[in-house]
């Protein structure tokens, strides 16, 4: 990579002493990116923008919020009614959190489909799973802050998960609460953590990006970049592609904010928290539903908690569970089918998490949970021994430039 030539003398002066412009030019402008990326590669930058949206609106909301059991609910109502544009800012914060999860889930399934977690991108993937965990913690604590019925009972149920830990469980829950139930101390610490964790996420995102830029993006056919003929400079080719995706993302977000802002929320959370009465049917936010379904599928307190956390823990070790050297599902005919089964399974778990825990729903939850773990713990390690993968093209340029050349190339490869 040649040194960029800056014309502006001020930029030159600064860059000589602090090479920030060279760095930006290198990572955002010339950054060589595989030329065959499809729109599923938009979701990383979308997640970044969603995170920034959450932080900006969140800081503004915190200027008007009171973290006290007597005032929290009223202060949120005051934001909705009295604070200038408060309704807009809060609805953006609420809906962008859902959109953040949608974007991140697509981003994760993109990684699963195209094998983006495989060597040499294992740490990149692990950092991503860490971001997901931090997001879940942050989202959960954020949901508690409005101090509605769902906030209160969600906080009670989720913190009680830790009581399943043998021997020290009860002490841990008391420690988490800072008392003998979810109360003012709990609300205060949740506010503090909800404020600070997003900045921890920003830190992990930076590591995620450093790891990404070490080897560059994976691509739809999952083979390594062979040279500059396989890449395009990030700017303007992918900046413009990302911006187009961003336009669609913001349109959908605006539609949600302005036309159905409470669609993804729960009406019970507009009733102030009452420690004496549990709502008849309590559910977490939609993005937790699949995990919630797994929790309820296991007929044992500790077992349910372990399986729920296990469903994320398996993602951490996924790079070593998958034994196949081929990254992209495009060349793995059996894996590809199972990939869609997994997608369906996750949607099914999400649906079951929203249903009452009785009758057929419990049985279906168990089947879906069993499949989830089968997919990760048995299918991933064993499938490569049975599956016959399709021949890989020799380079990214080959299948793009001519189909015949690809066939010829793979034929030669097979002869060898």
């Amino acid at each position, binding site marked *: 990579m040649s040194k960029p030539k800056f014309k502006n003398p001020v930029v030159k002066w600064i860059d000589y002493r602090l090479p920030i412009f060279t760095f930006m030019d290198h990572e955002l402008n010339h950054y060589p990116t595989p030329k065959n990326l499809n729109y599923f590669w938009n979701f990383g930058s979308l997640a970044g923008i969603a995170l920034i949206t959450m932080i*900006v*609106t969140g800081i*503004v909301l915190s*200027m*008007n919020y009171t973290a006290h059991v007597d005032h929290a609910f009223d202060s949120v109502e*005051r934001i909705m*009614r*009295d*604070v*200038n*544009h*408060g309704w*807009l*800012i809060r609805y953006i914060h609420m809906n962008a959190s859902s959109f953040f999860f949608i974007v991140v889930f697509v981003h994760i399934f993109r990684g699963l489909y195209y094998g983006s977690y495989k060597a040499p991108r294992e740490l990149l993937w692990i950092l991503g799973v860490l971001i997901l965990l931090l997001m879940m913690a942050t989202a959960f604590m954020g949901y508690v802050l409005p101090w509605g019925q769902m906030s209160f009972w969600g906080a009670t149920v989720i913190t009680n998960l830790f009581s399943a830990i043998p021997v020290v469980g009860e002490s841990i829950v008391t420690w988490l609460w800072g008392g003998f139930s979810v109360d003012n101390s709990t609300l205060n610490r949740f506010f503090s953590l909800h404020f600070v964790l997003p900045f921890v996420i920003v830190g992990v995102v930076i590591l995620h990006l450093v790891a990404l830029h070490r080897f560059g993006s994976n691509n739809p056919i999952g083979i390594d970049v062979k040279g500059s003929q396989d890449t395009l400079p990030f700017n303007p080719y992918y900046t413009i592609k990302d911006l187009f995706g961003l336009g669609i993302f913001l349109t959908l977000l605006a539609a949600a904010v302005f036309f159905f802002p409470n669609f993804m929320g729960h009406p019970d959370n507009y009733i102030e928290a009452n420690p004496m009465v549990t709502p008849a049917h309590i559910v977490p936010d939609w993005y937790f539903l699949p995990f919630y379904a797994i929790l309820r599928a296991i007929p044992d307190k500790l077992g349910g908690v372990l399986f729920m956390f296990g469903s994320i823990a398996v993602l951490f070790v996924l790079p070593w569970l998958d034994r196949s050297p081929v990254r992209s599902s495009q060349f793995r005919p059996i894996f590809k089918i199972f990939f869609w089964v997994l997608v369906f399974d996750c949607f099914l778990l999400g649906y079951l998490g929203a249903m009452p825990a009785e009758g057929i729903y419990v049985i279906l939850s168990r089947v879906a949970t069993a499949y989830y773990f089968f997919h990760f713990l048995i299918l991933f390690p064993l499938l490569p021994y049975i599956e016959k993968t399709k021949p890989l093209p020799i380079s990214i340029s080959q299948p793009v430039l001519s189909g015949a050349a690809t066939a010829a190339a793979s034929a030669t490869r097979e002869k060898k």
Partner: protein
Amino acid sequence: MSKNSNLKSKEDEGKRDFLIVSTYALAGVGAAAFVWPLIDQMNPAADTLALASTEIDLSSLEEGQSITVKWRGKPVFVRYRTKEEIKQANEVSLDEMRDPQLDTDRVTNEKYIVLVGVCTHLGCVPLGQKTGDVKGQYGGWFCPCHGSHYDNSGRIRKGPAPTNLAVPSYKFLSETLIRIG
């Protein structure tokens, strides 16, 4: 962008430049529209503005007494001045003052002087409302922070403060009931 060989003519270049400039302009307007609510939320909210006026009942106030009332988070001083004090306030020569103003321009009913009790120097609350308080050399109010002396019309006479104590906008609803704000 002008060196792009795919562009056929000057006219195409012009079209492209127009598209780029108009895209940036629209994006700028969009960004500004998003940023404005984030800034404006720090302005007083509707409930704060609703508290912008306060009514004060003066019927229990006797000659020579003062009361302090909270208005918009700040103290408002009301003093029922004695005849002597009123006379003093009217006789003093304007040449002695830093911020010359007639007493009659500062009151609606000359018995009651109504002031925002915030020193115009750096915002402390001057003494002089309570019976035991130091009232300064001019028998009005004295700011303990940096030593500003105000007379019984709230006019700055000595010390660092640049202007007289502010007179809020108020109205007599009856003989002894006023509304501030």
